[in-house]
């Protein structure tokens, strides 16, 4: 394992300490229990937005804390959901009296820990609503699975709901918006290499020089299928067709399109992928109204990318364009 770290046990906290130093104007990091909170929280009268999950997906979630996005983020150990006490403390720290929305990715551990925290908060009179994100088309949603993973749409939901809360929307309305975003968004990912969990010390899976894993999530788990490595054009075609067919997206739709790097894939490749994506979208009459190309939701040092499409109406787009000031997203401010 080759990483710029000191030791696996301390990597999460040491990285967050660096985040706090690098962005002292935007966020504060509380160490016991561990959470990242917007500077100046709670914002009186504003709905609080809290998310969280295992670490190793940076900039998600800590990098999305700040004005116009998250009020707090709860980082667990690498790939391990945070614990109820972290979530409870973060939720109470950002409650400005208008209640708090939990944006939860659909993983058994995340669901259970956020659930326990929500009950603890309710017992103390903090109103909490939870929305579960489950946008990964690679997982069939059936009685025979834990349902679909929450992936790329999480980032878009955090931005859009954060803007709505900043505008003063009430909890019920922000919650409804978050469900709408989840309903209109779909994602799929591909891996060219595995990633290495620091505490494990070796790659989670082995992949031959000519192979790729199609349909991976963000935790280094193997995907749905192992396939021979193909040109970017074919890979993007495969992913986009699956995403478009699933919702389905239709000719005339406007979308927010994200090409997300898994951590070790350079921007040069991600822009090339974006070019291929627009080509496929164009052939289907789908227009990209807004675009994101970069590392937004990573899987440690995995090489690969994911594509996320969100069907967006004028309201979503105007919320998207609202000012945001966080370590990871910054515009209009």
């Amino acid at each position: 394992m080759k990483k710029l770290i000191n030791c696996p046990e301390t990597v999460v906290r040491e990285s967050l300490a660096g985040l706090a130093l690098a962005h002292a104007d935007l966020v504060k990091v509380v160490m016991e229990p561990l959470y990242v909170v917007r500077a100046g929280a709670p914002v009186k009268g504003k709905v609080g937005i809290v998310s969280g999950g295992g670490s190793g997906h940076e900039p998600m979630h800590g990098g999305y804390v700040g004005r116009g996005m998250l009020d707090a983020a709860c980082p667990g150990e690498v790939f391990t959901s945070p614990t109820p006490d972290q979530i409870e403390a973060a939720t109470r720290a950002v409650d400005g009296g208008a209640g708090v929305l939990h944006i939860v990715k659909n993983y058994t551990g995340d669901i259970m820990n956020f659930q326990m925290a929500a009950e603890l908060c309710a017992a103390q009179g903090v109103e909490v609503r939870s929305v579960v994100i489950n946008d990964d088309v690679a997982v069939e949603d059936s009685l025979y699975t834990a349902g679909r993973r929450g992936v790329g749409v999480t980032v878009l939901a955090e931005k859009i709901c954060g803007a709505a809360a900043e505008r003063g929307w009430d909890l019920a309305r922000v919650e409804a918006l978050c469900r709408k975003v989840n309903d209109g968004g779909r994602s799929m990912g591909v891996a060219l290499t595995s990633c290495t969990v620091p505490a494990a010390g070796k790659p989670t899976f082995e992949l031959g020089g000519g192979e790729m894993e199609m349909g991976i999530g963000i935790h280094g788990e193997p995907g749905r299928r192992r396939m021979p490595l193909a040109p970017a054009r074919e890979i993007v075609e495969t992913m986009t067709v699956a995403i478009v067919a699933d919702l389905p997206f239709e000719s005339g739709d406007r979308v927010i399109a994200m090409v997300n790097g898994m951590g070790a894939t350079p921007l040069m490749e991600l822009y090339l992928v974006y070019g291929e994506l627009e080509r496929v979208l164009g052939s289907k009459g789908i227009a990209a109204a807004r675009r994101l190309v970069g590392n937004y939701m990573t899987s440690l040092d995995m090489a690969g990318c994911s594509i996320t499409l969100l069907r967006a109406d004028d309201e979503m787009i105007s919320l998207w364009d609202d000012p945001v000031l966080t370590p990871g997203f910054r515009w209009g401010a």
Partner: protein
Amino acid sequence: MAVTRDHLLAWLEALERTYAENRSWLTDLDAAIGDADHGANMARGFAAARAEAAQNAPGDLRGVLQVAAASLIRKVGGASGPLYGTLFLKASTACAGKETLDAAGVVAMFQAGIKGIQQLGKAAEGDKTMLDALLPALGAMRKGLENGTELNVILADATAAAERGMLATTPMQARKGRASYLGPRSVGHQDPGATSAWLLLRAAAETFGK
């Protein structure tokens, strides 16, 4: 022969040791069908549970299990944190007011804990989870109790049943947890949680007997 507070503390010590020793095995199992953190999660959680119970636990059985439950819930995270935390939490309530546990008391304790995992995780036998080790173990305990078998034999039988259940997870396709994302690719791998559950029972058999 009865299970005392010291037995519970000894059990927690044994668990800390067991999960430290089997950490990389559990992580490798989780790497195959999950996200390669189960070993670290269990080792971290039971190191904390043992330490906090030894320092802060009140004098009664229930207090020891409550402290252990709280530290598992606070220190583990993931799916296994709430699930094992619930096992100890429900187990603690089953010990309310008791100074020691006879065979019936021990079985009642495990029954409460395992039912708690079922309620929280909504998994059934055959879903390829820790329950595939825990439910057969519970069945063996109940049977032993009916037949008036003595405690260390009951626990030995339960551990054997858990081991069979653990091995039986290999051919299963996961229907719960992370492994279910793999669909058919989850077949052919032993479930990490079922494995940590077997270790949990084995440690109980080894310590409660003494």
